[in-house]
């Protein structure tokens, strides 16, 4: 089952956040804690980390989109084991 990449609670006010850019793309494998997407308020960027290891299956919000806390930025299909991350189709 896919795990959502959510907009974390980064602001104490209701200042709008924008998606600055995706640092990964659909199909790419990431480790837990890898930076996957960058958010922006005027003058400051914030890196959102992957909530789990897996493969990015979709990027829901594109660069420039305004987002709020709790919104789904994208989805990760978790890998079953650590070894899956090392899997190489050419092996």
């Amino acid at each position, binding site marked *: 089952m896919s795990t959502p990449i959510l907009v974390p609670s*980064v*602001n104490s006010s209701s200042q709008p956040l924008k998606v*600055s850019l995706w640092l990964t793309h659909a199909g790419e494998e990431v480790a837990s804690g890898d930076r996957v997407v960058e958010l*922006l308020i*005027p*003058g400051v960027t*914030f*890196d959102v*980390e992957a909530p789990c290891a897996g493969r990015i299956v979709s990027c829901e919000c594109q660069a420039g989109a305004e987002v709020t806390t709790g919104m789904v930025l994208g989805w990760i299909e978790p890998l079953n084991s650590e070894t899956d991350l090392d899997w190489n189709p050419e092996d």
Partner: protein
Amino acid sequence: MLGCVDFDSILTLQERALQEIRQQETDQATLFVCEHPPIITVGREGSHAQLAESSQEFKASQLDVRWVNRGGGALLHAPGQLAVYPLLPLKRMGLGMDDFQNGLVQSLLRMCAELGIEAERFPDSADIFGRCGQFAFLGAAIKSWISYYGLYINVSPDMKLQRLIDANQHDHRLTSLSATLTREASMSSVRESIVRNLVQQFGYQQTHIFTRHPLLHRVKKKVYVHP
């Protein structure tokens, strides 16, 4: 307080300090204050439209253009511009992204008040401007809830160089503290004031000051700009 240091070296040093802060359990922070030899950096809010010349032309003038992962737009760094990089463990300090942004802006405004400069924050932005235009710029980033990069203050840089980019997004002229004061602004006073105000703003009590680091080399660089 590190003098004029190469942009890449301070970036490496910030990465290293960020890893150290991430590993520690305390709310200890690091603040790098320096100037840079001439280089253009473009943040996430910047665009090619802000550059007065093409990358090739800048290259011919020995001016590197770097696209970097900080907020803010295009900036030309040069001696006379103070670069202030606070690395703060925001989560441990209970600060959000907007608290950090406001903290930087408030520190800048207090510094301006101490220098006798009337300054304001442009609504819905982090730009600071005075009667002659904009002289301070936010360009910060947060990774693993630790801040890096930070803010830039035009104390008394060569304004001919500054005109190579359109750093200003709100039709305020680009200026410096010296031009606003109509006398030479003292780099050491500005440095002392912004450091003290940042320390107070973010609630630190004890500070240790170092003026060099073994990983850093002070540098000089010549660039060639057409009049």
